[in-house]
């Protein structure tokens, strides 16, 4: 229990240990702790930001979906309307076409009947002339009376 040189030795040892701790232990460890603290804080902030953004995106997605749904409904309605229009148009076209065909047919029929009538008239004229010829063979000059017969035939 004597106070001696050990005191100085311990004092110097203590000084060296403190210096070493300060330079090679405390500074790097505190540096690592500070860096980690900062990294964790940054990470938490980023997570929060991400969450916020996700919420916004969800909101946006909801809007887009809503819009898409209403657009789809509009498109369907338009398509239905257009389909109805097309059906109506084709009905009209068909009707007009039918009428046109009908008119043409009627006209042809008329023409045909007229032609037949003409033909008939001519035949009747010839027949009447032939009959009259037969009846009036002798006294009647065929050439002189043909005009009369034709007039007759015209009147039929």
């Amino acid at each position: 229990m004597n106070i001696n040189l050990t005191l100085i030795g311990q004092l110097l040892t203590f000084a060296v240990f403190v210096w070493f701790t300060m330079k090679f232990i405390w500074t790097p460890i505190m540096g690592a702790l500070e860096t980690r603290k900062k990294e964790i804080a940054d990470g938490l902030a980023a997570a929060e930001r991400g969450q916020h953004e996700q919420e916004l995106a969800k909101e946006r997605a909801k809007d887009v979906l809503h819009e898409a749904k209403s657009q789809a409904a509009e498109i369907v309605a338009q398509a239905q309307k257009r389909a109805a229009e097309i059906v109506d148009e084709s009905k009209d076209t068909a009707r007009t076409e039918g009428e046109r065909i009908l008119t043409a047919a009627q006209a042809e029929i008329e023409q045909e009947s007229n032609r037949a009538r003409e033909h008939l008239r001519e035949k009747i004229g010839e027949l009447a002339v032939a009959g009259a010829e037969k009846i009036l063979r002798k006294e009647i000059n065929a050439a002189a009376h043909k005009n009369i017969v034709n007039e007759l035939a015209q009147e039929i």
Partner: protein
Amino acid sequence: MAGDTLTSSEYIKHHLTNLTFGQHPDGSWGMAHNAAEAKAMGFWAIHVDTMFWSIGLGILFLYFFSKVAKTATTGVPEGLQNFVEWLVDFIDTSVRGSFSARNSLVAPLALTVFVWIFLQNLMDLVPVDLIPEAAKLLGIHFMKVVPSTDPNATFGMAIGVFILVLFYSIKIKGIGGFAGELTLQPFSADNMLVKLLFIPINFILEFVSLIAKPISLALRLFGNMYAGEMIFILIAIMYNAGLILGLFGGVLQLGWAIFHILIITLQAFIFMTLTIVYLDMAHHEH
């Protein structure tokens, strides 16, 4: 154990003698062979055991901590790094709590003080005869394994702290400010003459309180550890006093060792906290 040829008093004395290297009165250098020879060597002798164990423990501390510091990652810490970071954080919190000025020396100083003293004190829990007996087999006759039971070790640290206190007191307040702090309070007066009269009184009071800082710091640690060591030695004597007392001694040793875990930690913590507080006082006018 104590050995048949030793009386209890000799056993205790043997345990309290340091392995001392110094100059014998006849002029030759060498180890002291007994306590009286060690005393005769005077100041220019060195306690080899105290130096060896304190430096060894200090290097152990520096080795593990610097290993962690070198590989410290900012990612997930594991193993030893967890422990070191926990300790560093604990010291950092303590320093922030008691030290309000800015000084990058104080926290590493507190860490060194705490861990080094704790490790020195921890040697107290090693059974008192274990290392000395092993040393005896190697031909070393004295071996005090607890450096903090050597006043040289505790005073060495306390004086180191005291030098820092003086240094920062003068650096922060200037020589005039520091001298004023020592002489112009606690008693002060408006009258110049009375003020001059108060100076010696103030100086005596303040000087005593200043010098009491390192002394109380060193003696508190030394006294606690010395007393603890002494009780371990006394318990060890019981092992030679028959089976019943020996068993009783075993129970006592266990109990005292468990209690001592508290004391060694507490003493290391007190030394550290007071170091921080003294340095804080050195940084502030009051």
